């Protein structure tokens, strides 16, 4: 069985990439195969990569405050393409927006203050569940 495969990307214009790179390195050290698309990726680019690379989890990071519209766009794009894959999001996300993101269909939210292990375990657990269901 192949290693869990995680796609990470920064949508929108936000350039804060310290967090997502740390998560990428930690997931890699935990045995995952990580595809990091980099900065300023458009929603169609991220959706396309999720399909082509047949990933188990898609993770995005937003620290500009634009998490709600960007998450909504990505989930719609994946839905349109008929892709079923858990989407997780991290960044400066206020407590009050977590409910809205979950309602949109985001599988897990990792706001500021989430521990490194908690993020890695959360992503790997989703990836494992995804692979069992397939």
């Amino acid at each position: 069985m192949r290693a869990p495969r995680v796609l990470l990307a920064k949508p929108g214009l936000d350039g804060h990439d310290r967090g997502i790179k740390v998560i990428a390195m930690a997931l890699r050290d935990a045995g995952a195969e990580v595809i990091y698309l980099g900065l300023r990726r458009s929603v169609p680019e991220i959706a396309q990569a999720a399909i082509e690379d047949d990933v188990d989890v898609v993770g995005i990071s937003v620290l500009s405050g634009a998490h709600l519209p960007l998450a909504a766009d990505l989930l719609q794009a994946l839905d349109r393409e008929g892709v079923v894959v858990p989407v997780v999001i991290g960044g400066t996300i206020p407590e009050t927006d977590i409910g809205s993101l979950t309602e949109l269909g985001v599988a897990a939210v990792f706001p500021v203050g989430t521990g490194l292990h908690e993020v890695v375990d959360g992503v790997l657990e989703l990836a494992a569940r995804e692979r069992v269901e397939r």
Partner: protein
Amino acid sequence: MTEVREIATDAGIPVREVYTERDVAPALDERLGAPGRPPFTRGPYPTMYRGQLWTMRQFAGFGSAEHANERFRFLLDRGQTALSVAFDLPTQLGYDSAHAVARPEVGRVGVAIDTADDMADLFAGLPLDGISVNFTINATAPIILAMYLVAAERQGASQASLAGTLQNDILKEFLARKTFVFPPHPSIRLSCDVIEFATQRLPRFNPISITGYHAREAGCDAVQELGLTLASAIAYSEALVARGLPFDSFAPRFSFHFATTMDLFEEVAKLRAARRMWSRIASERFGAHDPNSGRLRFFSGNSGTTLTAQQPLNNIIRSTVQCLGAVLGGAQSIHVMGYDEAFEIPTEEAVTLSLRTQQIIALESGAARTVDPLGGSYYVEALTDEIEARANDVLTEIDALGGAVAALEQGVSQRWIAASAYRIEREIAEGIRPRVGVNVHEDPEQASVEVPALFTLDPSIAERQIARTAAHVASRDGAACAEATAAVEAAAGDGVNVMPSLIHAVRAGATLGELSDVFRSVFGEFREPHPW
């Protein structure tokens, strides 16, 4: 505990149990000099805060020009002494608010500026010939400067009267802050156009703030921060000298920007070492004759990454320590983070506290009473020497790679930063690096975070901004604007300084997005190398 960890500073410099005069190398007097004299270790000015306190400059701006103007007045009314403008991401990346990629970001992390009209509204009622303004803008710095000059012109303020600082340090955008647009070489050229123009026309304006702050916030340590910053300063200096400008004509106009984080003595030592190193670089590498060329002046920002979402009020104490470090390090201007910045744009209550933090340190703590109060401390002097030696090693490595630009084109500097960030996070996760409220002295009762009142952004801002810009475009003289824009394209393509044509185009009503598109068509766009 079986493993005995060496006691070391944040940057990994081993620390002894106690320091004595034997730990300080001979000839300390020469390495210190007098305050205001080379090598400026003790401070850039002879009397420091006895003559004039540092500038208290809280970074602010969000929403529309009117919203940001309101926040500026709020801060000035509470005793702030200068302004510092935050721009939204579309403005920083050269998109008008109506652009598809701009929509979700309009007015979020700063103010949205599309036209010179927006810039005029941003400063409505604030006399630009009497107030110093700092602009955190880089890739689009020449356009923003042009708009500022046009806004000042409409107020009747002369160019000679304008004081302030334009960040305009594109190299650290590639390293860490990431609002680059064009490839490195044309980007440096635009930075240098601004510096050259300001050197000739804006006698009170700092046309660049060479910045290590963002590399530090992105994860590097104090030594790397210093090495990377000075490597950038060397790269700009070489580019300007290659244009035929004498070093002494532009170097006195450089300003710098460092982070001041939690390791108080290491930070103070770093800031002292920074002054001494730049003074030496100015004279030894560039043959400076004017002592002002080697006089390093800096703005200090507190570190947002040291603030925690857990027990957010603790951040007030963290910010106080960091602000004190900046003062003991001899900063010329300081920003203190809002304690709620781990979540959102700080509320008015939080920015007021940040300003009060500065005022209490300035007026009550006594830290401003004498110049370089830690000078001569065995520990601080030994640390200053050690940081200088280690930062010189970083410079040697960067030189060996071919300089700051080559190092970032190869992705080497970015990898240093990311590797250090990962190490820090692992140390926090493993409890090796204490974070009160996070991995030690956690509060089990406080499972969820309570911040008194979060800042909220008016959702109709984007629509109004877009309508406003559309009206502006409809009302301008289209032919005159197109002609002025074509002149910018010609200057960009011919290697002529773009500032005069940009000012003309902005006056003719060209938008930030249109002018950025001109540069995109001439210079192309940069895509980062893969991070590992």
